[in-house]
Every structure is written in structure tokens, then in C-alpha cells.
């Protein structure tokens, strides 16, 4: 009998759901609390969590943030459309996987090595992971289940995640928009009044001033942009 994947805190060191017999869903199906169910059922439960639990937040990862192909850009738009339909939803990005030492700002971004800090700091009780590479999503989801009571939802472009309370697979722009439609329907059923609007600006992100951008802003990677003393760059690929 596979384990039930419920919101935490699961405790000091979480047991991965995969160890306990939870298997990823086949195409067209989804995971709800570790059980394989119809996609629609999982979407409704995910929508309900995002609509009723405290501080719903979307954590977009590099696969939607980096705009590396047309599909990613369309998916990013769909994510924003979804966020607009969730009352008081916030977006906290996961732009890079490198740990930020000595300190991360949990308001500005979610660090996969410290995801529970972001969750606890912002008192987030429902969240969506989207566009996060599967490996990092799995690490984060498990840490969140270990130390917080957050209801986690994974909108995965691949096969899904056992450690999320709701895991939807093969999620691209079209499927995310379908989830948005389900969410709007559930919202109306619950009698929650909401006019679609953009999430608030992330207050901790520094304002980007491209006019005054300097090589030094690239920090440890600045050496990649400026030639070494005496080096003459005559051609590049």
C-alpha cells in the first residue's frame, strides 16, 4: 500500500514517496496525495488548495523564466494568466539553482537548497512549482514536506513528482490554461469574488537599469566578459 503524500511537516528527514511505493502517473493521469487519479480530479483539488489556503504562491523555474524557446515563452504567459486568477497570488521565482551564500533573500527568490526558508518566511500554505527541472523540484518538494505545512502542486513538463500533494504531468501552455479554467470554475463554485489582476511586484528584486549596467554587475563571472590584462581579443565565435 503506497504512502499518502500529505502536507507536512513530515519531520527531521523525510522519506521519499518513491521509497514507499508511490509511482509516477501514466500519461493522461495525475497524482493526488500519492495516488493515481484522473487529471481533472487532481486539478480541482489543486485549485481548491490555491484558492483556500494562506498566501498562495507560484514558484516559476528557469524553464519558464529564461525564455529559451517559443514554448517556454508561451508557457510563461500561461503561468501569468493562471496567477492573475488566483486571489492575492504571488510569484517568487527560482531563477538559478546555485545556492546563494552567504545569504539568500527568501522574499526575492526561492533557493532549491533552502526552499522551506522561503515557505516559512512568507507563511506560504499552498504553492505551485512550474518550469523547475525535475531533479531540483524533487529536492525542494521533499524539503518543503519535511519542514512546513505547505500544500505543494507540481505542474511538470515531464512525468511528474511523487513528493508533491498534487502532481500533473506533461504540462505546457495549453494544459496550464486548462488548469486555469478549472481553477476559475472551482473559484466560482466556492463563491470567491475576484477580478483577474497581475500579482504584485516582487518587492525585494532590485530594479533593473540596463542603461547603467556594468561588467562588475556580473560578479564572479565578470572575468568571462572582460579580457585579461594585456589580452587582445581579435575574433570570437
Amino acid at each position, binding site marked *: 500500500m503506497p504512502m499518502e503524500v500529505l502536507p507536512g511537516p513530515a519531520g527531521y*528527514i*523525510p522519506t*521519499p514517496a*518513491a*521509497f514507499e511505493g508511490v*509511482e*509516477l502517473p501514466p500519461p493522461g493521469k495525475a497524482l493526488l496525495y500519492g495516488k493515481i487519479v484522473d487529471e481533472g480530479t487532481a486539478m480541482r483539488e489543486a485549485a481548491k488548495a490555491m484558492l483556500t489556503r494562506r498566501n498562495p504562491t507560484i514558484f516559476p523555474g*528557469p524553464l519558464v523564466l529564461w525564455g529559451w524557446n517559443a514554448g517556454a515563452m508561451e508557457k510563461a504567459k500561461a503561468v501569468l494568466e493562471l496567477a492573475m486568477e488566483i486571489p492575492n497570488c504571488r510569484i517568487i521565482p527560482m531563477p538559478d*539553482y*546555485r*545556492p546563494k*551564500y552567504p545569504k539568500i533573500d527568501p522574499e526575492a527568490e526561492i533557493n*532549491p*537548497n*533552502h526552499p522551506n*526558508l522561503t515557505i516559512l518566511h512568507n507563511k506560504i500554505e499552498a504553492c505551485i512549482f512550474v518550469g523547475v*527541472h*525535475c*531533479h*531540483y523540484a*524533487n*529536492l525542494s518538494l*521533499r*524539503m518543503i514536506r*519535511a519542514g512546513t505545512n505547505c500544500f505543494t502542486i507540481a505542474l511538470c513538463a*515531464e*512525468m511528474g513528482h*511523487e513528493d508533491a500533494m498534487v502532481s500533473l504531468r506533461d504540462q505546457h501552455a495549453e494544459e496550464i490554461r486548462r488548469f486555469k479554467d478549472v481553477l476559475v470554475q472551482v473559484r466560482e463554485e466556492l463563491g470567491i469574488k475576484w477580478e483577474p489582476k497581475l500579482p504584485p511586484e516582487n518587492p525585494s528584486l532590485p530594479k533593473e537599469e540596463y542603461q547603467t549596467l556594468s561588467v562588475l554587475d556580473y560578479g564572479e*563571472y565578470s572575468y*568571462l*566578459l572582460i579580457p585579461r590584462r594585456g589580452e587582445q581579443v581579435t575574433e570570437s565565435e
Partner: protein
Amino acid sequence: MPEQRVVDADYLLLEAPRERKFITGAQAMAEAVKRANVDIAIAYPITPQSEVMHLVGDIWAQGYLKDYYRAEEEYGAMSAIAGAVRGGARAFSATSGPGLLRGLEAIASWPGHRIPAVLGVLTRVVNAPLSIQPDNVEIAYLLHSGVVVLHAENQQDVFDFTLASFVISEKVDVYIPIAVCTEGFFVTHAKGYVNMTPEDMKLPPRDPYKAPVPPTDCEIPPARIQRDAPVQKSNFMSYLIHAVWQQEVWSSNIRAMKYIYKYLGGPIEVVNPEAEVFVVASGCAAAQGREAVRYAQLEGLNVGLVKVKSIRPFPEKEIRQALSRAKAVIVPEHNIVGWLAKEVKAAIPNSDIVVGGPRVYGGMTLPVELIMEKIYNALGIKKEKKVVV
């Protein structure tokens, strides 16, 4: 070389017509590599325990692979694989015995870095004393590295396991390396019939963008030699990230099981499931176990075989079920430590029925008579030992 066309992986592995050839295990592995659309083979030419990498060198010369790299030593070879695979290539290597152990530190880092590579392990003894004879004690060292470990019984298994491993290891929910092990000499140097997929068909190329981690092209900034900064700060959070990272490696290992069912027909094979005494074996010992079952049937004894194809993930549930009615379980092995017997004992509730042996090592063969002795003991049959003068 014949023009190769790319075909769907499921078609190649499950439906494509097969041609029967009489070849060695080493040839079977190279033939699988030929059909796997491998980008690069990386090798260190240790005292040859098998000619696999020599044969792969031949097929590179024929144009089946884009590159062939001879590393400075085994650690370098296994590190080069990590670099090539991170850069998006499909990579293959083969090694054995001391060579495997020398590269083991790098190999053990592959799963954590989510490196989908295929490694042939053509087993030989671990020195000292110096020897190049077959013995599979080195598999014991691989078992806790996170790598998926398959153990081939014969030339056919070597071909099937190797070709399927390229497909399984690159599944996005697995994405860790697979070691295809088989006994050096006994399988690698001996010929057997192998049903092979057509030479003019190959797997689709690797798609490095379909990965659970970001692909790294190793050139464009931000250049990162290591994908992730070392997780070694002295605080609870860093320990936890390392813990869940390790869990992810083993979760990936577990997820490989469904593909082992799909492409290899499951992690075990059971012969005579109603038997009261079972021989549980992997690799070459399974071939001898199969022979012992045939001997036993000729003598009217109710003996069965559980051949274990996948050592990692270990098919605990399947073995527990297969042995649920067994009165005795005999585990013949080609090593002194008895790693398979320990695994089987840990998997079943009544571990006292497990007989850890017969074991042979140092390159000795495993006569069927040794297994039969254990079967007679288990069934309470007394046989006289004769000295033939």
C-alpha cells in the same frame, strides 16, 4: 558500414526483426553499442579482461561513433565520461576489476550529477594477488554507488541489457548511469547465439534538453565546472539538501524498475515457480543454476530457478513473492563475499532458509555438481562421494 536509420526506441527494442548470430559476449556488447547511436566511447586500456573497448574502437573506425577517447587512466576515463555526458553526448565505456575500483570515486559521483551513461563491467578479480581471472566481487562495490546494476547471464543478455540501458538511463525520471555486468572470460570470451536487431537501425540520438537538470555546454558563461556548488556548509540546511539529494539518486534508481519490466521483461525470471527448493542466482551463476534445475528435473526433484537480472534496483518484492513457498534457497555465486546471498536474506522474512553458496572465486568455474550437492543437502538426500582413481 551500412547506412543506419533512426527508429523509435520502443520499436528497436521490442518489435524490430532479429537476426541470429554466433558471437562472443564482448562482440555482443560492441554490437549493442553499434546500434545505440553512441556519440563517444571513452576507455583506458587496462590489461584486457575483454576486448569490448577494442571492438568499440573498431566500430568507431568504421564510423558508427563520432569519437573515441583514450584516457590517461581509469579515474580520468570515468571523469571524461561525466564531462562528455554533461555536454550532451551519449557515452559508453567498459572496464573491470581494479580498473573499476580505480574509477569508482568518479563513477559514484555520476548518479548525483545525474549522468546517464552506460558502463560495461566485464568482471575480473580484484588484486592482490594479481590475476585477470573472472570473479564478480567488484559488483559488491557498485551496489551502493547509486548506479543501476544489471547482471547478464549470457551473450544474449549482454546485447539486450546494453542496448536497453541507453534507453532506460536517459528516461527523464531515471537519468542515472547503468552498469551492465557480466563475467569476464566466461561470457566475454565465449560464443553463444544472440538474436540481434538489424545492423542498419539505431536508436534516436540523445536529447540533452529532456533532462531533470539543466544541460551544460561547458563553454558559454556562466561556465560551471561543477553544476552545483559544494553542499558542505556546516549547518542543518546543507546537510538536509545533501540528504534529499541522495534520496533523489535512490528514487531515480527505483524509478528504473518500470523500464526494466518494459524492456527486459522484469527484474527476475522464474523457472518452475511451484518448486520447493530454489536456486537464486545472477550472471553466469544463473546459467549454472539453470543447468542444476535441469539435472534436478532428470532426477525427479522439485527445484526451481530465480534468475536475478537487476541487482539495483533490487527486486525485493518480486523475490519475496517468488520464494514465498520455498523450503530452501540456494545462492551460488562467483565471489567470496556472497553479496547476492546477503541481498536475498535481507529481502525475505525467513532468511534461515537461505544457503549462502556454493561460492567460487579467483577465476574458478562453478560446476553444476557443487550446486547439486547443496540441493541434495536441502532435500535431505545422501549421496556418496567417490574417489575416481
